[in-house]
């Protein structure tokens, strides 16, 4: 299963709050491992070394915003996403259901542990 990265877009209102909070809630309850970051834009501007860790090692699914923006944010931080194996799901335009289906795989069954 690909790694999952979620961006909370904490410093702007561009991702609908209801969508990002619902996606986060369902990821947290899914029982699946994932990385969540406050704001990929901020990390890119700072060339945060974690960008490299997020983009390296196999396939990754990223719930954030427009794929073109995310691709070049990673590139600007010297952490280009792998050409094959990186999928960006756009929380600015998709519903929470579609984001979760794309990230966890359609029909994913929750294994809520608490």
């Amino acid at each position, binding site marked *: *299963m690909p*790694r999952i*990265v979620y961006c*909370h*877009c*904490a*410093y*702007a209102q*561009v991702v609908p709050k209801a969508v990002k*909070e619902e996606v*986060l*809630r369902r*990821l*947290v*309850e899914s*029982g*699946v*491992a*994932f*990385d*969540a*970051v*406050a*704001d990929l*834009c*901020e*990390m*890119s*501007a*700072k*060339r*945060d*070394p*974690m960008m*490299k*860790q*997020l983009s*390296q*090692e196999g396939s990754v699914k990223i719930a954030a*915003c*427009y*794929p*073109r*923006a*995310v691709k*070049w*944010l990673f*590139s*600007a931080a010297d952490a280009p996403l792998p050409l094959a194996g990186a999928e960006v799901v756009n929380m*600015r335009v998709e519903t929470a259901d579609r984001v979760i289906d794309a990230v966890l795989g359609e029909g994913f069954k929750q294994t*809520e*542990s*608490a």
Partner: protein
Amino acid sequence: MIGTLKSIPRVALYEGEGSRPIAGPVRAELTRLLLEKGYAVSSIRPGGQVAPATSGVLLVLGEFLEQKPLEAVAETDAVKVLFRDIAALDVPKIMGLVESLCGTTPLPKPGGWKPWFPVIDFGRCTNCMQCLSFCLFDVYGVSTEGKIQVQHENHCKTDCPACSRVCPEVAILFPKYRSGPINGDEINSEDLRRESMKVDISSLLGGDIYQALRDRSDKAKSRFSKERDEDRALKERQRCLTKLQEQLEIPPEVLASLPSLDQIQAKAVQAKQRAADALGMNSAQLT
């Protein structure tokens, strides 16, 4: 680039071997609050995979079945790993613990710098250097290989997308911009048509865009501007300038904070010189 090459503090919520699951509501609330405070959060679950930690501080929180060492150093030596048991703590106490161990993150406080800066789509950029000669705030620079680069993200004026409007290739993005294609949405033929119109407008003004905008801003401030602007030609110029300001979407605050005319001229000469040098260097490399 802003600041040092340090990772933001990362908190791992550990629910693997040797631990009890964290209660659902605690896990959910904690994750949201940590993200809102600017931390990165890795949710570690059995069989899953998260990004490796290779630098900075990693604070591992969990309800551990056995006592963990408070501190450990990872194999690379570059990562400081701290363990804390949160079984007996509620969410506010856990947040207090995180802040006392990791410090508050150096991310913007409300009202501070919002991550607003240009991002170049190198799939489209032709390295023409127009953005470099346009920007008066030294946001752009040139790499040692002669390639355009965004070098000072935090010099960029919040909410001003003007350089994306002068880029002839629609290659400049502002991911937090409200609409496409500047926000990274796909580019359509209508966007490309609009871009060529913008170039026409700036050539219509026949001179330095900033100087023209500065003129306009000064006139707006003048009590006598109305009388002076009675002249039809001036009115027409005003109309063009208003249109230009709208097209470039320069916020009024940015216009009001433009440097003096002398400074603008000096900056514009410098920026153009840097662009010309870079273009000269690139063409010399080609021959």
